[in-house]
C-alpha cells in the first residue's frame, strides 16, 4: 500500500515547518500502532511508552521518509524497532539484576511489577510461546498483514529470515492452540 495524496501533502506541510500537520498525519494510525506495541511488548504501559517514542522518532526523521513506501509500514517499522530496543534493554537489566542478587527474594524482582501489568488475553498468552523475533514476524505478517518483503524491510532482515521465523512461529502457535486453546481453532 503506497502513501495516499493526503498523506503526501501532510508530510510536505510538516517538512515545510507546519508541524501542526503532524497530528492529522499520524492520527489514523494511533490505534494500530498501540495494538502493534501491545502485541510486541505484551504490556500496556510499556506499549504506550513505545508508541510515544515511535511517534517522536517518526517526527524527527520524517525528512528521511521515502514517500514511495507505505506510511503505515514505515511507522510500524519504527515502533517495532523501539519495542525491540526496549525488550533488549529490559532483558539486560533483568540479567544484571539477577547477577547482582543471585536469586534474592522475588518480592524485589523488577519484573514482578511488569508481570502484574501484562496483558492476559488469549492472543497475548499465545504470543508468549514465541521468541521475540518470531513474535515480531508473526505480528507483522499475520496480524498486521504486511507482506513478506515489507516485514523483512520493517525488521531489517532478509525475506529468508522472515520465512524461517514465520514458519517456526506458526508451528509453535499451532501446537499451543492444540494444547491450551482449542477453542480458538476455527471450524474444527
Amino acid at each position, binding site marked *: 500500500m503506497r502513501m495516499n495524496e493526503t498523506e503526501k501533502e501532510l508530510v510536505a506541510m510538516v517538512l515545510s515547518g507546519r508541524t501542526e500537520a503532524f497530528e492529522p498525519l499520524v492520527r489514523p494510525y494511533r490505534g494500530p500502532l498501540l495494538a502493534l506495541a501491545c502485541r510486541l511488548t505484551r504490556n500496556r504501559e510499556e*506499549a504506550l511508552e513505545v508508541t510515544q517514542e515511535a511517534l517522536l522518532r517518526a517526527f524527527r526523521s520524517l*525528512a528521511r521518509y521515502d514517500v514511495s513506501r507505505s506510511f503505515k509500514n514505515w511507522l510500524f517499522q519504527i515502533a517495532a524497532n523501539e519495542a525491540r530496543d526496549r525488550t533488549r534493554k529490559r532483558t539486560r537489566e533483568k540479567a544484571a539484576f539477577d547477577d547482582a542478587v543471585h536469586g534474592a527474594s522475588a518480592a524485589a524482582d523488577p519484573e514482578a511489577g511488569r508481570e502484574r501489568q501484562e496483558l492476559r488475553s488469549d492472543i497475548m498468552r*499465545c504470543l508468549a510461546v514465541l521468541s521475540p523475533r518470531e513474535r515480531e514476524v508473526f505480528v507483522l505478517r499475520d496480524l498486521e498483514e504486511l507482506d513478506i518483503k515489507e516485514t523483512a524491510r520493517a525488521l531489517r532482515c532478509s525475506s529468508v529470515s522472515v520465512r524461517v521465523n514465520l514458519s517456526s512461529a506458526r508451528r509453535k*502457535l*499451532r501446537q499451543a492452540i492444540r494444547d491450551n486453546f482449542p477453542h480458538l481453532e*476455527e471450524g474444527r
Partner: protein
Amino acid sequence: MTCRRVHSLIPLYAGDDLRPRLAWAVRAHVDACPGCREELEGFRAAMAGVKTAAKAEGVPDWNEGKWNAVMARVAAEARGAGSVPGSVGMRVFRPRWAAATALGAVLGLVVLSLLFRGPAPQPERAPAGSGMVIASGDSRQDKIAITMISPDSGLQVVWFLDKNFDYEGEQE
C-alpha cells in the same frame, strides 16, 4: 515431494507465503494425500482462529490526554529546533560513522593548523641595500604597524593595518 517435506512447508503454504514453484508442488501433493491435507486444514484453522481472536480483542485506543501530551512534545521539540524535522539541532538519528567522520575532520584541521602555523612573527630586515626595516607586530594583536626607514634620507614611514590587513593609515 515426500510427506515429511510437505509437513515442513505447510506452515508457510497455509499463509500463501511459499514461492510459486514450491507452492505448486505442495498443492499437488496435498490434493493427493489425505494426511497432509488434514495437517494443512489444522494449520489453516489455527491461523484463522488467531486472526479472528486478535480482531475480536479490539484495537486499544489512547487516552486523549496522553495523545495530546505526545503531540505537545512534538510541537515543543519542533519549536526548540527551528520547526523543520531533521533540521540542525534536532535529535535525529545519525549513523555512527557520521560522528566519527566529523571527529576525524576536526582532528585533521587541528593537526593542519599546527603544521602550517609557521614560526612566530619576528621583525624582518629587508634585503641589504633596500635600507628598509620591516617591523611587524604580534599576529594576535588587533593592529599591525609596519615601519619603513630610508637609509639615505632617514625618513620613517609607519603603516597601520588592522588584523585583516586592511590599510588604516600611515604616519611619517
